[in-house]
């Protein structure tokens, strides 16, 4: 049968962006827990 097309996730296609997102979210988390 036909294979459904995967939805493009532009953000996660870029490794540099993926790393930056991870760093940013970790920093936000650390800031929230230190407040």
């Amino acid at each position, binding site marked *: 049968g036909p294979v459904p097309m995967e939805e493009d996730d532009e953000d996660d296609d870029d490794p540099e962006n993926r790393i*930056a997102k991870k760093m940013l*979210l970790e920093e*936000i988390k650390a800031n929230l827990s230190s407040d």
Partner: protein
Amino acid sequence: KDPASLKAENQRLFTEFLEFCSQHTQEHSEVIPFLDSRHQKTSPDFLASAEFRNVLGRCLTRVQAKRSKVYVYINELCTVLKAHSQKKKLALSS
């Protein structure tokens, strides 16, 4: 340019950056408030500097051209704002 007009221009560029990025970070709604809080903690001298205008202008142009790297530019701006934060951590005494 005088500091007052630089500050106004920087504020306008920062708002534009926030508005653009908020459209592309909707899956992590905490990112934009975090960037905004960093901005609020930044030294007024830096906020009115040509250096900040250059960083903002570069990040804004790049993110608009390549929104697949939106977190790269947000992270870059956060790092710059952090480096010019008013609240300096006290050095640990030995």
